[in-house]
């Protein structure tokens, strides 16, 4: 089938999609349920980048695209864009979220304690080949030993300690009307971006893209040397105000994570040297993305960031749907623009020939 077929375009694209589906396995609700249960971090990543908390739909998106994550994120975003914004949730705070993991690299011990929670950080990265022959009892509680004393369910952020000791500027607790918070999905990102837009953009940024730019920063492209003050995985209630009674109620619970990094000598003009905070948060649990993103938040806040860490460079190039879509768009025919480019090239070549042969002997 030709790429640009005479009178065949529509049939060709329908058949191409049918062939794609024919080569993948069948889809059913049971498989999607298993995906949700066994691949929660994948579901989280897609929900975070898709900025839609819907594990069932994320599982469907992953399954329907054969695991092509950029396609899956696009599916969620395109679905999300048709949904109305019904209400504004109450702010989520460390004091209310059910924290399952909270660690700090800045201190040996912290108020509330280091809570390791669920992690593979200290596991031996060996393939559990036995799973290929006999099922492993994962998912059951077996093997998990209860702590002697339960960890505090909602420890305060480590940064609170810095603020109390005056090492960090206090939080500005100004009352905000939710409707006045700029919404990235309803208004375009402009530069310099508002704080809300920056954090929203990082929240739904591409994990790999944020990691690449963040890693460049960590390797020394840019002048910050951050310390991970806190990484937190939690379950947060989505609390809404009843439109009639005004009573606050929970509409459900979401997996949520946030990270904060601190950098020394984040000076504000006319003030003593202090610590400055880089912050990132996202739906789902995604530690790699948040550590990189919170470091980028710090890097972007420098008065003169490295060119690869200016706000515009970071936020424009870590947008997963836009970056992946534009990348694959180069598959589209470009023969008109190419022909225009060839035209100028041929003319420049003809001019070069004339210049080499000013009296026209070679003609």
């Amino acid at each position, binding site marked *: 089938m030709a*790429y*640009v*077929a*005479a*009178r*065949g*375009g*529509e049939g*060709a*694209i329908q058949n191409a999609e049918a062939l794609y589906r024919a080569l993948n396995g069948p889809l059913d609700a049971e498989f999607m349920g298993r995906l949700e249960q066994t691949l929660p971090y994948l579901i989280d990543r897609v929900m975070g980048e898709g900025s839609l908390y819907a594990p069932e739909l994320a599982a469907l998106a992953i399954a329907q695209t054969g695991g092509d994550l950029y396609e899956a994120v*696009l*599916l969620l*975003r*395109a679905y*999300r*864009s*048709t949904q*109305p914004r019904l209400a504004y949730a109450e702010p989520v705070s460390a004091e209310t979220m059910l924290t399952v993991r909270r660690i700090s690299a800045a201190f040996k011990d912290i108020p509330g304690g280091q809570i390791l929670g669920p992690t593979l950080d200290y596991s031996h990265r060996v393939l559990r080949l036995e799973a290929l022959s006999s099922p492993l009892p994962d998912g059951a509680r077996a093997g998990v030993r209860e702590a002697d004393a339960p960890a505090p369910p909602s420890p305060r952020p480590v940064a609170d300690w810095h603020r109390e000791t005056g090492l960090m500027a206090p939080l500005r607790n100004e009352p905000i009307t939710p409707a006045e918070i700029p919404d990235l*999905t*309803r*208004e*375009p*990102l*402009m*530069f*310099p971006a508002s704080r809300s837009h920056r954090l929203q953009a990082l929240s739904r940024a591409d994990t790999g893209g944020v990691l690449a730019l963040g890693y460049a920063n960590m390797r020394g492209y840019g002048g910050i040397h951050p310390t991970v003050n806190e990484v937190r995985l939690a379950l947060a209630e989505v609390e809404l105000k009843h439109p009639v009674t005004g009573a606050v109620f929970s509409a459900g619970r979401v997996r949520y994570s946030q990270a904060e990094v601190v950098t020394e000598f984040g000076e504000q003009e006319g003030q003593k040297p202090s610590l400055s905070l880089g912050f990132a948060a996202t739906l789902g649990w995604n530690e790699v993305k948040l550590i990189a993103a919170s470091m980028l938040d710090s890097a972007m806040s420098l008065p003169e960031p490295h060119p690869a860490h*200016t706000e*515009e460079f970071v936020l424009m190039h870590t947008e997963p*749907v*836009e970056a*992946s*879509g*534009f*990348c*694959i*768009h180069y598959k*589209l*025919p*470009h*023969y*008109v*623009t190419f*022909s*225009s*480019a*060839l*035209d*100028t*090239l*041929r*003319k*420049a070549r003809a*001019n*070069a020939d004339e*210049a080499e042969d000013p009296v026209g002997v070679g003609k």
Partner: protein
Amino acid sequence: MSLADLTFPRQDYSYAFLDAFAKRELRRSILKAIAIPGYQVPYASREVPMARGWGTGGLQVSLALVGPDDTVKVIDQGDDDSVNAANLRRFIARMTGVKTTTDALSATLIQSRHRIPEEILGEHQVLVLQVPFPEPLYQVETSFAKTKEMHADAEYSPMWLSIYESLVRYNTNTHGADYPVVVNGRYLMAPSPIPRWDNPKLHMAAHLTLLSAGREKRLYAVPPYTEVRPLEFEDVPFEVEDQRGWTDESTGTRNKFMNEIPLEGGLSRYELSDSDYKRKLETQDPKLGTTYYNHNGRFYIEGYLRGRNR
């Protein structure tokens, strides 16, 4: 009477896919764009069920404008049957039930990537061009924050300089498609990657042209009967692609924009890029319209092109 009687029956998607809020925002942005010719209006740019970079900006504008009485044509590289054009047309039709056509003259709404049809469009028509890079200054300045200031100050000297530099270096203007234009004597504008052949068609055009970049979230307009001038020096006039001597194989037509098709042995053959114009010629369609360039390659507005194709 129950609450159910008062509500509309549930639909999975709104007419033309976008919800009313998205359409309202788009229509307001379009009106602003028309009021300030060539000015890039930022808009939210919702995700739509197409990949970004595949015409999502043009699609959003088309979906915000399309109504039951419209007839829609979609082309890519001048071709109605290009796979992505076919896909966009199928989507618009599926979400609206609207009539579609390949005829440039009977369409009321034409969405296009990289081409403007050869036949002269009329006042009853809207042309929506898909835009990859809305910022004409991006070749000389990558930061949007800075180009916004440059537009405010009409500070376009780096662009003039880049043309001057190509003249010095190559003795010719090396800007290919997406050749920058000045709209209404004020804003520098990227006409989208149409060939230079199509640039003059925007000047004092009877139709409305809307240009929309989904990924970059900007849209802008050339209202009907608006002056559109290419950046050109007095002594080095702007020139369209030199395709003199290229003849469409099946119709013998010359002096329309052609596709060059490579043949074995370093040879080429040529065919008309505007596929439906070609069809009309081949079938001697009575609806064949007047073209922007005549059979000698002269542009229909005398004196606009100062180089070849006057």
